[in-house]
């Protein structure tokens, strides 16, 4: 039997004005288990807290009920007070007789009666409270960043800056991501490479950062503070430590007809290649799909010309297993495939390009060395039509993505503006549904494109593109003048919707992190925890969480880094003790709880149970990882056998409250 003390607070006249606090204390004194009951002016004051502490000591209280303001206000205060004199803080319950009683009722008799009932419910609950100890788990002081684009680089740099080790896993041979392919950035028009490559170099030189390029995450185990990750280092057939990046091999390789992915296939590279001049790490990689030596065993030119002797045709995939306290997902995005939108003739004419391809066509390191030439005949295009929202804002399903890709309005304005600036004799049309420019200096930028650069912005959409006689016959609508336009264009640029990288979904499964129907990672809370995944210890950076531009990506990257630093700064994690736990004797192992757990906190194991007649039975039972569980209780209701229960809000505790209220 508990020895319970009841403390009724007046809160000055806030409670005492409507509730007869003395009567409440007296009535509750008669409840079973109550050995002490009193009222006082301000329980939260130092004197009030001392009253509680002294009473705990004097009466040897095992449970405390405080009838006062909302537990959201002072529950912690009272718990700490109890703890300071050796009572487990979770033996304290608060009956809310201010916000939910004295402040909403006028009649003293009614309010007093209700206060007593609320007090009784709290007493009934305390009877069933058990001391809870917050568990602790150690924190491995190293972070993993998956994805080496601008998001991943920024996150890694910030974490390293704070003194923690970070590993970056990047699936392609170099870090840099999509930003490396971009020519200029809006709305300032500074060159993307000029601001990105120093960061890439910094990441490479930062002692705390280790870059696993050309690598993928194969397996993730563990939980917040202690993830164990298996990283596959794909064979690049070049010894990374020896290669000097001199590039001789990439010039001598006889296999010249390999589509160059960095320029989106608009030109060719060799079978051994360095993706671009500023690549980090600047080492060569052999493409096994094209290398004659690897495919037929005959060639070996690169090996012969390599003075550093870095080529190794026998290399195999290697695996690294490492421990991390936190994982940041920064897997980024890709433009969607335009197969389904061939009314724009993307597959029918090389002069119909995506915006990212256009980016490369404008770029000095691109296939045309920065001169804008149309791919079909390398002539200057005189009329260019930009089409916005290709595959964005659709009805979902086969039609395309239901969301706005967010960056297209701005980069299209940028393309249009840059084109007009470099080639003033070019006619530029932009077909838009809405121009969306929320962002610092964004609308001004777009207006400049229209007002200063004379870009023709037309509210409407392109309906059909017909390549004919060297032109692209564009049929479009102009909704404001209610006309159908027919434009003979030289190039058409499609603002393809963006979608999360294809590697994100399997990664989410490995991390037990949740995703929305569009394969964007979901955040722990859309407003308040936007850079955390609901899975503890997994953080989100950049486009993998939703469409965003570079400044937003960098902000989120730094925010994620701050969260990681906050986590890694701790030696141990204190867990919320109000977590679920499973009674193995009762558990059927049916997996219902696991299915509703938003945190992936529940796992199963086969356990032996002693049965009658000295037999042993093996049964699959659930166990909850207290470091991961957040205590929502979804599992407790999903569980038919009642094996799953929640500390601090157990079935019996809640039912005791129900009983006390309904008596």
């Amino acid at each position, binding site marked *: 039997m508990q020895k319970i003390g009841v403390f009724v607070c007046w809160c000055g006249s806030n409670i005492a004005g409507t509730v007869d606090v003395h009567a409440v204390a007296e009535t509750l004194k008669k409840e079973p288990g109550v050995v002490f009951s009193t009222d006082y002016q301000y329980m939260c004051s130092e004197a009030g807290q001392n009253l509680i502490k002294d009473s705990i000591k004097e009466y040897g209280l095992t449970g405390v009920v405080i009838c006062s303001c909302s537990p959201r206000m002072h529950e912690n205060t009272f718990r700490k007070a109890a703890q300071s004199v050796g009572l487990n803080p979770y033996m304290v319950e608060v009956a809310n007789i*201010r916000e939910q009683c004295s402040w909403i*009722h006028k009649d003293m008799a009614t309010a007093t009666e209700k206060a007593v009932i609320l007090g009784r419910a709290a007493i009934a609950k305390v009877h069933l409270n058990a001391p809870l100890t917050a568990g602790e788990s150690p924190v491995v002081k190293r972070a993993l960043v998956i994805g080496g684009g601008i998001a991943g680089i920024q996150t890694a740099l910030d974490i390293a800056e704070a003194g923690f080790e970070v590993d970056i896993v990047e699936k392609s041979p170099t870090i840099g991501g999509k930003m490396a392919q971009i020519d200029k950035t809006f709305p300032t028009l500074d060159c993307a490479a000029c601001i990105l490559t120093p960061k890439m170099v910094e990441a490479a030189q930062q002692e705390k950062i280790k870059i696993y390029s050309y690598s993928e995450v194969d397996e993730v185990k563990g939980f917040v503070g202690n993830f164990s990750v298996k990283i596959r280092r794909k064979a690049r057939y070049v010894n990374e430590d020896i290669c000097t990046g001199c590039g001789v091999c990439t010039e001598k390789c006889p296999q010249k007809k390999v589509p160059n992915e960095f320029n989106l296939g608009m030109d060719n590279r060799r079978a051994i290649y360095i993706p671009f001049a500023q690549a980090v790490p600047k080492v060569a990689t052999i493409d096994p799909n094209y290398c004659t030596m690897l495919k037929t065993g005959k060639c070996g030119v690169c090996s012969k010309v390599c003075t550093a002797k870095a080529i190794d045709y026998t290399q195999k995939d290697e695996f690294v297993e490492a421990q991390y306290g936190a994982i940041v997902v920064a897997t980024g995005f890709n433009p969607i495939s335009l197969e389904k939108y061939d009314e724009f003739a993307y597959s029918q004419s090389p002069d119909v390009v995506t915006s990212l391809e256009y980016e490369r066509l404008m770029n000095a390191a691109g296939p045309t060395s920065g001169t804008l030439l149309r791919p079909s005949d390398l002539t200057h295009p005189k009329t260019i039509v930009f089409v916005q929202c290709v595959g964005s804002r659709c009805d979902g399903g086969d039609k395309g993505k239901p969301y706005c890709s967010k960056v297209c309005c701005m980069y299209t304005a940028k393309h249009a503006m840059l084109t007009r600036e470099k080639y003033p004799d070019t006619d530029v049309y932009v077909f838009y549904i809405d121009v969306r420019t929320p962002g610092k200096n964004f609308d001004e930028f777009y207006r400049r494109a229209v007002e200063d650069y004379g870009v023709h912005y037309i509210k409407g959409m392109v309906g059909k593109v017909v390549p004919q006689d060297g032109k692209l016959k564009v049929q479009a609508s102009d909704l404001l003048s209610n006309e159908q336009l027919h434009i003979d264009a030289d190039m058409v640029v499609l603002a393809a919707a963006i979608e999360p990288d294809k590697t994100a979904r399997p990664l989410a499964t490995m991390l037990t992190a949740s995703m929305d129907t569009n394969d964007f990672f979901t955040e722990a809370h859309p407003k308040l925890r936007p850079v955390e995944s609901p899975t503890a210890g997994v953080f989100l950076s950049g486009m993998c969480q939703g469409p965003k531009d570079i400044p937003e990506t960098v902000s989120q990257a730094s925010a994620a880094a701050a969260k990681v630093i906050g986590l890694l700064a701790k030696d141990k994690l204190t867990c919320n003790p109000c977590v679920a736990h499973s009674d193995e004797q009762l558990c059927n192992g049916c997996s219902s709880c696991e299915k509703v757990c938003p945190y992936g906190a529940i796992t199963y194991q086969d356990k032996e149970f002693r049965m009658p007649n000295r037999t042993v039975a093996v049964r699959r039972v659930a166990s909850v990882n207290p470091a991961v569980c957040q205590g929502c209780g979804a599992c407790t209701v999903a569980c038919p056998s009642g094996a799953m229960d929640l500390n601090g809000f157990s079935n019996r505790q*809640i039912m005791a409250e129900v009983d006390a209220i309904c008596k």
Partner: protein
Amino acid sequence: MQIEKKEFKPTIVAFCCNWCSYAGADLAGTNRLNYPADVKIIRVPCSCRVNPMFILRAFQRGADGVILCGCHPGDCHYTTGNYYARRRMTLLFSMLDFLGIERGRTRVEWVSAAEGAKFAQTMNEFVETIISLGENKRLEDLRCKK
């Protein structure tokens, strides 16, 4: 002849999730928005913590109405809890209706931490409904043939 009518004071249990609705109830208090004292709130971490058993238990022990309040769908502190609660309560309420229990006795309302006024208004409406339904007899009587 005058029959003396005893005023019916219903017993009403309100389960409120800690993050939204309980805070909404607190806000109703802070703003001094009245609702009847018949409503007694039980704090739960999330609407998904509420087991149909608790609701039946309340009726068993004499409650006349039970209401469950949680974060608005999409705003759950635990992301998905109220979605499960919504399904569970939909099915439970439908079953009670099927058994001939007055459907006004159970209700789910999504109340955010900012919706103090909505909380008070909801409780006022609910109490009114319960008073109009009168004492909860059917659930108790289901097993005893008159």
